């Protein structure tokens, strides 16, 4: 049995952020698999807690670890395009925001949630998702356009996309 006391600032930051990590993991995994999401978050916390790297934000690294673990989970279970699994009945029913996000392509969901839910800026989001900032922003824009598509009376603007930092 471990009796390790969570005492370092590194551990303290992870402990303080545990609730946010689990919230993000639950949103990322989807509404019907809370147990899996909690396991992702807990695993990320344990791994990052075990590797205290000077000068790095442990919470940011834990978010990145959740993303990495979830990508691996999805890859190994062949669920890369969960949107393909929406039934006709689901499509007809008015979807909640959580539901719409749960059926989004994973790459768009990651970018949307790390920014709109976890509250990270674009550069931190790029570090967490291990992507260029331009990719994060374009995925975020696609995710929002997808949500816009379910909202009556809002049409996307034409024109090219330009990336800002």
């Amino acid at each position: 049995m471990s009796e390790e006391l969570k005492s370092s600032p590194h551990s303290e930051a992870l402990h303080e952020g545990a609730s946010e990590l689990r919230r993000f993991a639950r949103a990322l995994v989807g509404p019907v698999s809370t147990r899996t999401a909690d396991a992702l978050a807990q695993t990320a916390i344990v791994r990052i807690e075990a590797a205290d790297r000077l000068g790095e934000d442990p919470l940011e690294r834990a978010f990145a670890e959740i993303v990495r673990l979830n990508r691996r989970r999805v890859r190994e279970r062949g669920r890369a395009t969960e949107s393909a699994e929406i039934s006709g009945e689901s499509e007809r029913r008015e979807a909640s925001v959580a539901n719409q996000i749960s059926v989004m392509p994973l790459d768009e969901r990651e970018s949307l949630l790390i920014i709109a839910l976890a509250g990270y800026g674009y550069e931190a989001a790029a570090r967490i998702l291990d992507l260029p900032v331009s990719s994060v922003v374009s995925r975020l824009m696609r995710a929002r356009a997808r949500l816009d598509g379910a909202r009556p009376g809002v049409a996307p603007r034409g024109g090219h996309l330009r990336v800002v930092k």
Partner: protein
Amino acid sequence: MSGASRVSEAELHAFVDGQLGDERALAVAVWLAESPRDGLRVDGWRMQNDAIQRAFPAPARERATLAFRAIDSDAPLTMPSTPAIEDYRARRRRRRTMALVAAFVAGAFAASALALFAHRMTTRPIPSDPIFVEVTTVSDEFARRAVEAWRTYARDPARPVEVDARDMAGLTKWLKERTGLAQPPTISGARLAGARVLPAHGGNAAFLLYRLASGDPVVLLAERGARSPGAYRSGDVSARAWSRDSFDYAIAGAVPDARLAALAAELAGPR
């Protein structure tokens, strides 16, 4: 729109997310004032952000106690093919109703299932690189309660305890009747100041306040149970928990870790 320079789609998103510098944010604000259509879209994304925050409430701040493997597990961790929340909730409600009925039947199978599970856990190797690491389930909850009890009462100048230790016989009898604790433990180098009775799961917990020679208050929480050892820290207050003789104990205080560990070792050791 003569007064505003054109802004890109990405800048509108960056504006919503607070990612623009002051100068560019001002330019976008001017643009939005003159472009109601874009203003509507920006408002929509803000509403999306708010809706996302509401859609995923933060879980309670309990520590996750998860100890299972995704690989080699008999319990699949996949999502159902239709991840509709309402469907899920309706199914869950039905399942709960059915569970009450099924509980009686399930009892007959529980023992054999438990034996099978124990057998598998002891005979199957842990994967070398699992997706989820094997996490030892540690009962930190009791230690956390000790920290909260310390914060609530230990520094209360008016009434930190209900019963003062000057009437040791009365205190012992009172505690035993309410919590089952036969005798308040003694701590070398510390003086028992008094006790409280706190509500606990399925019973009462004994709250014992000691003062170290330095004057620092430490709290010993005791209640019936047999949890695993645990530890918890919040700010400068930390706690360690253990079980002994069908009682769970947790000692908490704003003292150095080494001192707290020594106190816990003394209390948990042979008496």
